[in-house]
């Protein structure tokens, strides 16, 4: 009998009732150092596309032309919150967690560049890559059709029936050539190196 009274008294204590019906753990907030989805810092994007090129997840980031200029946009269903785009961006357009503070303190960065590789056994010499390349189009607006060009400043052109790569260093890594190649003969290789401080990579 006494135990029943004890339990009843236990159960009808106001604080117990309140706890039973209303008690919740405090809203747990993500700590400040959590790498959340990258947010814009307001700095100007130069459309170098480094963030898009280093992104390991397909379709997670795109640099779009908005009213005020270029602006990267993150797609939450695709982004894996790795923070590589934040670290790789040379302008500091994106920010996530405390990555920006850490990289500016330790002077860590990624340096990336692109290498073009044409597989001659697969290449059909159609010239699609040379025509579609946006850098080529800017350098030599007359470049069309077969992909031959009189300008020496283009990234690649058809010379003597095969694709010759002239200025690899101008490539922005947009992969337009790779997408337009009917045979997957041209491949853009992204070389990325993690660097820190004084010892700047030579390229």
């Amino acid at each position, binding site marked *: 009998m006494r135990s029943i009274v004890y339990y009843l008294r236990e159960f009808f204590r106001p604080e117990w009732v309140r706890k039973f019906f209303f008690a919740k753990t405090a809203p747990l907030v993500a700590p400040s150092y959590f790498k959340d989805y990258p947010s814009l810092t307001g700095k100007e994007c130069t459309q170098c596309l480094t963030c898009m090129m280093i992104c390991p997840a397909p379709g997670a980031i795109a640099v779009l032309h908005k009213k005020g200029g270029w602006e990267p946009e993150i797609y939450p269903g695709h982004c894996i919150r790795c*923070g*590589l785009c934040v670290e790789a961006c040379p302008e500091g357009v994106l920010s996530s967690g405390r*990555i920006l503070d850490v990289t500016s303190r330790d002077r860590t960065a990624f340096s990336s560049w692109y*290498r073009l590789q044409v597989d001659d056994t697969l290449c059909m010499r159609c010239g699609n890559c040379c025509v579609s390349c946006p850098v080529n189009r800017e350098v030599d607006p007359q470049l069309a059709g077969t992909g031959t060009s009189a300008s020496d400043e283009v990234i690649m052109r058809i010379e003597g029936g095969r694709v010759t790569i002239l200025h690899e260093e101008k490539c922005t890594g947009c992969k337009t050539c790779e997408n337009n190649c009917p045979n997957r003969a041209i491949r853009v*290789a*992204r070389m*990325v190196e993690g660097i820190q401080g004084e010892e700047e990579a030579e390229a």
Partner: protein
Amino acid sequence: MKKTVDVSIPLGPVHPCWKEPVRIKCETAGERVLRTEVELGYMKKGIERIMRGRPWQEVMFLAERVCGICSVIHNMVFIEAMEEISEIAVPPRAAYLRVIVNELDRMASHILANFSYCYTIEHETLAMYLLNTRETVLDNLERLTGSRINTAYMIPGGVRFDLLPEDAAAMLADLSKVEDEMRRYTGMFETGPLIALRSKGIGVMDREEAIRAHTVGPTARASGVVCDLRLRHPTYRELGFTQVTRTEGDNFARIMVRFQEVFQSIDLIRKCIETLPDGPIRGGGLCRAGETSYAGEAPRGELTYSIKTDEYGRVVDIAIRTPSIMNIEACAHSMIRDVTSIADVTSTFISSDPCIACNER
């Protein structure tokens, strides 16, 4: 004489005890299990196929997502294999930071394995205690790397973030808290009479069987087999690593090995933080062409990456050998055979810490 009807009892793929889909078919006579067969293939995503023709910065994330529980070691083994191919030297501070992150991940993985064992034998109190301790470990992982599970911490030639002195102090404080809690829970597990009834002498695998089945990791170490690749890792050797072995080879021993390895990990991290050398955390370096096979000690055992790269550092061919596959086979053929009740099948299977996502990729 009453005839016993032989039944084949399937467990899974959706089962309250399994975290991941796997199907076990048990041929039983009464309650006694005569033969078991493990049916895999529910999680085959073709990660190795996706990896081909991709540079390291993409393969690194795919390697991490081979397994979410032990993601750090997949990252570490892949990156160290790439470093071996391209002869990149790692700065000493980065090597120590790698050990810290790896050991934190190992602690989280071992505590999770012990949690699921306690959950399977329906000791929910201890399971919840362990899960809460795991949160503290993950907090430290998050403070250092910025995320809880898939950390993406290591890159060729170094690591991504540095350990600040105040973070190191917070980590040491948290570690002593974790150590106190784990001592208490280990005592609870060691002395609990009902736990002993469910785990001691069940699922026994002796040393010969363990060697014959090529078991690795804590499952092998609980049977007295000497196999820990951390003994061969240069940074661990500097830290004076010794391995934990037990000789019983039953469920209890496997769980106790994991408990003891948690303490060992705590000691290793402490030693790392004390002797953390100054200097850069990234050395740079480009990936080159080559071919290698590199192994590291995952929380579940030996993990091997066989990689072939081309001149631009892209992965041409890759083969991953994960530890769980040997442990699951050994579990099916040596441990589960002759257990006396169907309830012990699940707990024995969980005690070998199977990771299906690792296994099938």
